């Protein structure tokens, strides 16, 4: 790797200035002239037949401009998940925008109103009379699969939406070869991504079906495709406007919901733009991380080598499968079985309908649920067999140069797990802490824990039915700067910084000379897959690099003509093009861009003079491509906790996270991902839980007073990020991915540290003070 000038620097995020001075760039701020406000009426029942809807009282309320009922909405079923085709064969096509016959969860939209104010719209939905015939509801997957359970979808007998499985080797033989067999059932809860900007859209749909939408989305093109399908119109009719950024996503804004098509249809009815903003309560019941129950059985030799692994996972997808069709696959593959070598393996997954809220995407996408099982059980194995948890993991781990377990066409060209474990252990003082006397006196016990996430993704290259290409436009300006335009949405993830750094490095421009365009939409930007699946730095980054190199090629052609040398003899550095070996022959990028865009005929003292035709035209580079591979990052998480055995409270004192990132494009931004990821993973481990009334199915945690997440006080005082730079050959300047492993590892690491502290193993998240006290036999 030649010397890097811009990549690797912790540059200031270009979007930070606007965000500290008010923050103009969020969809929540969009106001259009004549804009109306909409609200949705939602079902109070978990399962009911809709007998009739009478909206006449609402229609008469002054200020109401339109009422939308199911009969006004195309009754089309589809998959609303952004990253797959709308009718992807591998997904379950069961989502509809507003079902006129049946509701399947508390909160399902049944009608909507547009009015001149949000207050009037709110008052109007209370005036819509819906007669329901309540049906028996079912709230757990086990009950849903039992004989005689209410059937939620005709095409899914026993409420089973999907039953994927993986199998290789001979499981019986593998277990017969084992010296020990470990079994356990591990349960994870429903949690919310808790993005802070609520879901909101402003839609203008005219009577020729031209749609313009501003929306909180992680994917412009997915919004376009799914919204067009839901409305029954051509995709090109929908223009999704790129907001400069959105207020968080984390996987929670990765599908179309009823909000966008409802606002569009109301807009068409009224002939005016319509704004629909969800309340926090509505957001809590719109998407969620699916709860999964995992039964895991592992055969091991005395030395800790795996001989066989079997797992069965039951995922509660709620009323519609949506993400649950894919989460179960990623869970099985990357949460459970690709992680480590085992000669004989089998996994069965069940995506099961219930009358709970619909699941969704959330950083890690099924892997946190699997990793909690695997890494908890490995800790148990190491404890029982007195094995070193680091050495045991390395013994079963994959090795650099091996074929990728997901797709043998890819190799593990870079794989820095050993370095992650070694450096992480050194940082937290692992050896010393493991040998420490826990102390029999005192109420507070300290413990240390480890969890690894050995195989993950850099995007979705090679996954069935999943989009994975990116595009970029790089344009060199006459002042020597460059503009970068991509459809990749910055959801807090930092690509406004990292992608502009990649472009500057590829172009040979100084730090700060590339600006991310804040304008654009699906009409004029090339396709990019969503901001999800740890993909942006690697996949979008490769596309940005390619577009920048294409612009640079043209830059050198023009410069070559100007300097009368071959472009091959030129190099660009710090915004200057020079002839190799002749530093005196230099042009600034600005001079070259000015020449390229100057008038062909120039007036001189001698009269009009034509210039060189080959030098003319804006210097621009375009790309649209899929990445070459899907390199795995890997990570090791160490935590130290203190358990108060009187109150059951757990304090996380120190977290160390080591991650094979390939190359850190902007180390400070990368640390931010890790520190925020730990907050989400720690919340999952200790406190976060969307709870429902078990009788009615209505959500009980509808605001941040009831739904607890870590504040600055609960967070550890020290979070150390260690980035192992393995220089991935297929990545932009060696980069792989970062965004999700740091959310996957905290929960099992914390659970293992709690075991180390008090000798009690918890197999159900979250590990609340109440569970700790029960585990200690104190209540």
């Amino acid at each position, binding site marked *: 790797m030649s010397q890097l000038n811009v990549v690797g620097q912790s540059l200031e995020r270009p979007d*930070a200035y606007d*965000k*500290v001075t*008010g*923050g103009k760039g969020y969809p929540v701020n969009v106001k259009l002239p004549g804009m109306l406000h909409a609200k949705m009426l939602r079902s109070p029942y978990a399962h009911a037949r809709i007998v009739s809807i009478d909206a006449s009282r609402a229609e008469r309320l002054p200020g109401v401009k339109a009422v939308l009922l199911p009969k006004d909405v195309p009754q089309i079923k589809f998959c609303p998940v952004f990253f797959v085709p709308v009718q992807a064969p591998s997904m379950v096509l069961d989502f509809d925008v507003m079902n006129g016959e049946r509701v399947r969860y508390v909160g399902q939209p049944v009608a909507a109103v547009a009015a001149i104010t949000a207050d009037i719209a709110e008052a109007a939905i209370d005036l819509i009379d819906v007669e329901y015939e309540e049906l028996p509801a079912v709230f757990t997957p086990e009950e849903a699969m039992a004989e005689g359970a209410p059937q939620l979808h005709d095409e899914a007998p026993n409420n089973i939406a999907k039953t994927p499985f993986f199998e290789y080797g001979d499981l019986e033989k593998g277990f017969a070869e084992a010296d020990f067999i470990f079994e356990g059932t591990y349960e994870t809860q429903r949690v919310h991504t808790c993005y802070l900007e609520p879901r909101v859209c402003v839609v203008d749909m005219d009577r020729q079906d031209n749609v313009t939408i501003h929306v909180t989305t992680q994917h412009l093109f997915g919004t376009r495709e799914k919204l067009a399908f839901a409305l029954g119109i051509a995709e090109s009719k929908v223009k999704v406007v790129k907001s400069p950024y959105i207020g968080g996503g984390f996987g929670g804004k990765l599908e179309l919901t009823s909000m966008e098509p409802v606002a569009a249809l109301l807009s068409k009815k009224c002939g005016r733009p319509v704004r629909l903003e969800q309340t926090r309560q509505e957001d809590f019941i719109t998407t969620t991380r699916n709860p999964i129950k995992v039964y895991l059985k592992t055969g091991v030799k005395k030395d800790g080598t795996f001989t066989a692994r079997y797992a069965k996972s039951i995922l509660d997808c709620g009323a519609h499968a949506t993400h649950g069709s894919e989460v179960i696959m990623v869970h099985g593959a990357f949460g459970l079985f690709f992680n480590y070598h085992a000669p004989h393996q089998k996994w069965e997954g069940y995506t099961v309908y219930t009358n709970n809220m619909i699941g969704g995407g959330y950083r890690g996408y099924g892997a946190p649920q699997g990793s909690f099982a695997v890494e908890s059980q490995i800790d148990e194995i190491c404890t029982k067999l007195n094995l070193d948890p680091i050495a045991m993991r390395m013994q079963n781990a994959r090795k650099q140069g091996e074929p990728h377990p997901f797709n043998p066409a890819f190799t593990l060209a870079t794989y820095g797990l050993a370095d992650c474990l070694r450096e992480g252990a050194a940082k937290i003082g692992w050896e010393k802490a493991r040998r420490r006397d826990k102390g029999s006196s005192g109420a507070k016990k300290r413990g240390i824990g480890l969890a690894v996430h050995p195989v993950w993704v850099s995007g979705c290259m090679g996954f069935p039915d999943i989009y994975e290409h990116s595009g970029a436009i790089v344009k060199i300006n006459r002042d020597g700067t460059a503009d970068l335009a991509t459809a990749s949405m910055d959801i807090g993830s930092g690509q406004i910084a990292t992608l502009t750094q990649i472009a500057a490095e590829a172009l040979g421009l100084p730090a700060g000379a590339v600006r991310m365009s804040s304008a654009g939409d699906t009409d004029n930007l090339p396709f990019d897959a969503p901001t999800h699946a740890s993909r942006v730095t690697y996949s979008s980054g490769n596309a940005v690099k390619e577009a920048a190199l294409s612009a640079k090629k043209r830059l050198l052609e023009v410069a070559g003509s100007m300097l009368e040398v071959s472009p091959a003899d030129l190099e660009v550095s710090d915004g200057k093009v020079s002839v190799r070996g002749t530093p005196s022959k230099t042009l600034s990028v600005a001079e070259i861009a000015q020449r390229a865009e100057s008038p062909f005929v120039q007036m001189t003292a001698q009269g009009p003079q034509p210039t060189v035709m080959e030098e003319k035209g804006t210097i621009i580079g375009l790309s649209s491509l899929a990445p070459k591979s899907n390199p795995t990052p890997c990570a090791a998480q160490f935590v130290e906790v203190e358990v108060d055995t009187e109150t059951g409270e757990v304090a996380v004192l120190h977290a160390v996270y080591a991650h094979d990132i390939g190359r850190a494009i902007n180390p400070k931004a990368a640390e*931010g991902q890790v520190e*925020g990821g730990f*907050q989400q993973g720690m919340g999952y481990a200790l406190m976060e839980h969307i709870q429902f009334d078990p009788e009615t199915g209505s959500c009980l945690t509808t605001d941040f007073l009831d739904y607890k*997440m870590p504040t600055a006080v609960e967070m550890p005082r020290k979070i150390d990020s260690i980035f192992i730079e393995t220089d991935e050959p297929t990545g932009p300047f060696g980069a792989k991915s970062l965004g999700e492993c740091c959310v996957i590892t905290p929960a099992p690491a914390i659970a293992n540290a709690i075991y180390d502290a008090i000798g009690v193993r918890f197999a159900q998240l979250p590990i609340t003070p109440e569970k700790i006290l029960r585990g200690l036999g104190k209540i």
Partner: protein
Amino acid sequence: MKKMLTLEVNGDVHELAVELDATLLRVLRDQIGLNGPKKGCDSGGCGCCTVHVDGKAVYSCVCYAHSFDGVKVTTAEGLSSGEELHPIQAAFVDAGAVQCGYCTCGMMMAAKQLLDDCPRPDEEQIRHGISGNLCRCTGYAKIVDAVKLASERS
């Protein structure tokens, strides 16, 4: 039912007719047109809407605007004077404390309250001082750094 109200917001005096049930947040965003105070939960749980009323930080989403006649309101937009960033704003940028940025304006107003009351806070005071404000991106680490930095620089 509306009530007339005078609010001084970031130095500008506004005469407003506000609905009796309109929150201060709603008036600042929808009637005055500010972006800094943000709606995250509308129930006093996240702190994105934090502004100062007569120098004290409040959750503007749980305050009725009509009860604030004659007060001075400061939002993130009012922190800086002229083109210079306020030291807290500059520290948030320099420390890398801004990710999605949706919590940032409210978080800075909480930080300002803390630094007004306690110009040299230790880490525990900082963490408690911003504990009424949620952030989902940063894990608060760089926000704590930013508040320390702002304190050191002033």
